[in-house]
C-alpha cells in the first residue's frame, strides 16, 4: 500500500469538499478499495472516509417504503430491514461473510457496481431511488454497465429508498471460490407489475429480464417462465461457468425466486 492522507468528515458537505481535492477517493466499508490498495493497484492521495457521517447511516421507514443510509453496513440491513422488506434483509445477510457484512456498505456496493455484487439486483428490481448529495437517480438510470454508474466525479450516495413490493425474493448461486453471485436473481412483484433483476451473469452488469417480467406480471408462478429462453449472448464466460451455464442459471434462479417470494 502506498502512503495517503486520511480524512474522516462528519458531514456530507465536508466530505464533498474533501473529495474535490486532487487524487481524493471516497472510502466506505473498503471491501473492494482496501484490497485494491494493498495490491498497489490503486494509489489515492487522499482517502475520504464516509463512515463518520451519521446522516447517511441507518434504516428508517419512509412513505411507501424503507430508506437505507448509504453508509449502513450489510449486517445492520440484515438485522433491521427485515420488518419492512424481508427479501432485502435476507440478501444483505447473505453477502460475503460476517467480517464483510460488518464493514461493507450499501453505498459502497452501489458506487462500485461490481457485476457480481448482490445489492444492484435488489435496487433495480425494487425500482429503488438512489439519493446523492446532488440529486435523486432512478434505479433504471443509475446502473450503466459493469463498474459503471450515473454518479459524477465526487458525487456521494447518501441513501437509497426502496419501494416495498407485495412479494419478493433474491436467490443467488455462489461462485464457488469467491462466493460472490455467479448469478443472482431478484424478483419483486409490485402493484404495477413484476420486476426481475439479474446480477453476476452479464458482461453489461445488472440487467432486467423483461420477458420474464411480462410473463410473471401475467401469472406470478415459476411455470410462467418455463417456456422462455435466455440468450447466452453477452453473458460472462470464465473459469467458473460458461455463458450458456449462466444463461441457464438465470432461468433456474428466476423460477426459484418466484417460488420463494413472499
Amino acid at each position: 500500500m502506498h502512503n495517503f492522507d486520511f480524512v474522516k468528515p462528519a458531514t456530507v458537505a465536508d466530505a464533498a469538499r474533501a473529495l474535490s481535492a486532487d487524487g481524493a477517493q471516497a472510502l466506505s466499508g473498503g471491501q473492494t478499495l482496501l484490497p485494491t490498495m494493498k495490491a498497489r493497484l490503486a494509489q489515492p492521495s487522499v482517502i475520504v472516509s464516509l463512515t463518520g457521517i451519521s446522516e447517511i447511516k441507518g434504516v428508517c421507514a419512509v412513505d411507501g417504503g424503507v430508506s437505507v443510509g448509504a453508509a449502513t453496513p450489510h449486517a445492520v440491513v440484515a438485522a433491521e430491514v427485515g420488518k419492512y422488506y424481508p427479501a432485502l434483509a435476507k440478501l444483505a445477510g447473505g453477502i460475503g461473510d460476517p467480517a464483510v457484512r460488518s464493514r461493507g456498505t450499501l453505498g459502497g456496493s452501489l458506487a462500485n457496481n461490481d457485476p457480481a455484487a448482490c445489492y444492484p439486483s435488489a435496487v433495480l428490481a425494487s425500482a429503488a431511488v438512489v439519493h446523492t448529495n446532488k440529486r435523486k437517480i432512478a434505479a433504471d438510470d443509475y446502473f450503466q454497465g459493469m463498474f459503471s454508474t450515473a454518479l459524477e466525479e465526487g458525487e456521494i450516495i447518501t441513501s437509497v429508498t426502496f419501494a416495498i413490493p407485495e412479494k419478493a425474493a433474491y436467490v443467488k448461486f455462489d461462485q464457488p471460490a469467491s462466493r460472490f453471485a455467479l448469478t443472482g436473481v431478484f424478483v419483486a412483484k409490485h402493484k404495477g407489475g413484476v420486476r426481475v433483476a439479474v446480477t453476476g451473469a452479464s458482461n453489461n452488469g445488472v440487467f432486467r429480464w423483461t420477458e420474464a417480467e411480462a410473463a410473471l406480471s401475467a401469472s406470478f408462478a415459476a411455470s410462467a417462465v418455463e417456456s422462455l429462453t435466455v440468450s447466452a449472448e453477452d453473458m460472462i464466460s470464465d473459469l467458473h461457468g460458461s455463458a450458456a451455464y449462466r444463461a441457464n442459471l438465470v432461468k433456474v434462479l428466476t423460477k426459484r425466486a418466484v417460488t420463494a417470494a413472499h
Partner: protein
Amino acid sequence: MPKDGIGASTVRREDVRFLTGKGRYTADINLRHQTYAVFCRSDIAHGRINSIDTAAAMAMPGVLAIMTGADFAAMGGNPAGWHIPSRDGSAMREPKRPVLAHGKVRHVGDAYAIVVAETLEQARDAAAAVNADITELEAIVDMAAAVANPGHRVHDEIDGNLAFDWGWIEDNRAAVDAAFAAAPHVTTLELTNNRLAPNAMETRASIGDYDPGTGDYKLYTTSQNPHLSRLLIAAFVMGIPENKLTVVAPDVGGGFGSKIYHYGEEAAVLAASKALERPVKWVADRSEAFLSDAHGRDHVTKIQLALDKQGNFLALRTETLANVGAYLSNFSTATPTFLHGTLMAGPYRTPLVYVNVKAVFTNTAPVDAYRGAGRPEATYSIERVIDKAAHELGLDPLAIRRQNFIQPDQYPYTTPVGLVYDTGNYNATLDKMIELADIAGFEKRAAASKAKGKLRGIGYSTWIEACGIAPSNLVGVLGARVGLYDAATVRVNATGNISVMTGAHSHGQGHETVFPQIVADMLGVPASSVDIVHGDTSKIPFGMGSYGSRSLAVCGTAITKAVDKIIAKGKKIAAHMLEAAEGDIEFKDGKFSVAGTDKAKAFGEIAFSAYVPHNYPLETLEPGLEETAFYDPANFTYPAGAYACEVEVDPDTGKVTVESFTCADDFGNVINPLIVQGQVHGGVAQGIGQALLENVAYDAQGQLLSGSYMDYTMPRADDLPFYTVDHSCNTPCTHNPLGVKGCGEAGAIGSPPAVINAVVNALQRGGHKAVTHIEMPATPARVWAAMNA
C-alpha cells in the same frame, strides 16, 4: 504403563501455543538490524531477458542492495533429487535451475531480482522501479503442444521439452501389449489429474543471517526438512561448507509437500545477508505463493484395463504426460515415476502392468509432490477405470474390486511394478466400509433424494499407498540422489526428563505429542516428561524430514532404536548399582530390577547415576545417558483402505453436495487415534477439494487465472460432510517394531476417485447414460455441461 503412552488419544500439546497465538513462525522472528527483501517476478510466462536496469531503484530511499540473476550465475543449480533415465537409456535432461532467473524467465512469477531495503514498503517501491527489458516469447503451456512442437523450447537446450520418457517396467511392455491384444474386453479412459496449489496456511518465508565475525550463515526458513535444505544450499547451490550453515525451520504452518523443496529465495536472502552483513527477511504474500510455490498433480493420462468377461483383471497400461513446469523441483522427477508408476497395481492381482510417463517442461510454475504425491494420481486412474470397466461389463463396482483383491494369504506379495507388499487385508476394510456406510440402505436414501428433485450417487475407492520410501540402497539404484533413513537422539537429562532430537519435522502432524507417547510407553515415564526438539540443524541429528507419511514409520522407529540403546545402557548401570549380573536385569514399567528379587532401581535413579557417576562402572562404561539411532527401513509400508462417498447432484444447476464420506483404513498399529482421525479428515478435505473445487488454471499465454482465493476454490467447512472414519481393521507392518504404516496422505489419495465415481453414478442413475467420465474438479458448470451435452 503411563496413561498417555501408545494408543492414547492425547490432545495435541502443540495446539495450545498455535491456537493462542504463541507459535513462533519464521515471520514472527525479527533480528537486530534486519532488512527486508522483495523479489521482482516475471509477469509474462516466457521471455528473454535483455537487460535489467537497477540504477533508478538503487537510488530510492532506504534501498540497500539489488541483485539479479547475473549476480548468481556462478552459483550451482538447485538439483532434482532423483535421476530418472528414459526408457531408451538416455539420461534425464536436467536444465540448471538458477537462484534467480538468468537469460530467460520461464513462468509467471519467476523471480529475476531481489531488492533489499530498510523497510518492506521501501523494498516494494524500489522493486516496482527495477526496469527489466524482457522480450516476450511464445508461451508453452499445453503439454501436448509442448511435446508436439519441437521448435518451441522452454529451455533452449532441450528440444521436445521432455525431461524423460520413462517406462516401468520396460521389459514387461511387450507382454502387456500381447495381453491387451488377446483380451476379451478392454476399457479405455482418458483423464486429467488437475493441478493444485498447496495453500499451506503459512506462506513461505526466509531470513538470511550471515555472521561476519565467524563467517557462519544461518537461515530461518519454512522447511519440512531443514537438513536436506542445508545440504542442497551448501553443497549444491552456494558452495559453502555444510558446517558453516545452520538451517532453522521453527514452527511451520503446514507444508503438504510444498516446503520440502529448496527454493531460490533462500539462497538469495543468504547471499544478500552476506553482502550487507545484516539479516535479510522475506515473507511471501499469498499472491506470490500462488505464483511460485511448487504446485501438485497435473497429469494427463490414458489408462487401459484388460479384463475377461467375468471381470478378472488381465493387464493394465497407462500413458501419462506429467507436467513438471518450468524447472525440475527437488522431488519432481520421483513423484510421477517411483511414487506413481510403482503404485499401478493397486490392491489388485493384475498380473501385467506397464506404465509410461513423459515429464514435460512448460512455462508454468514447477510441479512437485503435494499430499500423496504420485499415489493420488495412480489411485485416481486405477479406481476410475475400474468403475468404467464394471459399468461396461454390467458388474457391481464392489464385486469387481473384491474379486481382484490380493488375498490375505498371498503376502509378501510381489507386484508387477516392483513393490513387495508385506501385509494387508483388503476384504476386511471393504467389509467394514460396507457396514459403516450402510451400503444396503443406499436405495432408500436415493429415493429420498429423488423426492427432493436431486440425483443421488454412490462411489467407491479401494486404495493402497506406499509410505516411508526405502530402503536407501534400493532407491539409490532407482535413481535417488539421497538416502531415505531418519535419525533421532534421545537425551535423558540428569533429573530424568527427556529431550528427543528428531530428524523428522512437524508442521501440523503432531510430532510433539505422538513421539513422546512412544518414549513414555517404552520407558514407563509420563509423556509430559518428554519433549521433542526438531527443526534446527545445530541441534538435531541428520534426518530427512517429514513428507510421504514417513515420520512415524521411519523417524518413530529411529526413536525406538535409540530408546532401546538407552534401556541397554541403563541395564549395565543398574547391574553395577544392584550388584547383579547384567543378564539378570529386567526393565519394566520404568524400573530396572534383578529378576526374581525385589531389588530395583527406578529409571530416574539410573539417569541420575549416569550424570553423577559416584557409584558407576566408570572403567567399562562412559557416563551420560544419551543415544542416537539412524534407521533405514527394509521396505516401504503399505497403508490401504476402502472409501465410500455419497453425493447429491442438483440437476438444474449441476451442483454436487457430498452427503456422506466413509473411510475404513488400515494404518497398522495406531499410536494416537485422535491424531490419526484428524489426519484422515484433513486428507479427505483436500481430496474432496481436488475432486470438486480446486484447480490451478493457466490461460494460453501462461497467465495464472486462479491466482487468488477469488478464483481458487479452497474447501470450506460447509463444502464438507461429517466423516465416518474407522481404523480398526489393522494389519501391523511387519518390518518396523511399532507395526505402523503412516496415515498423513491416505485421505488425499483415496478420496478423489470415490467422489468422482459417485458423481458419475448419480448422473448415470439420473438418466444421463452417456456420461462415463467427468473431469476434476467437478464444478457445477462442468456437471451441468455433462448433463446437457
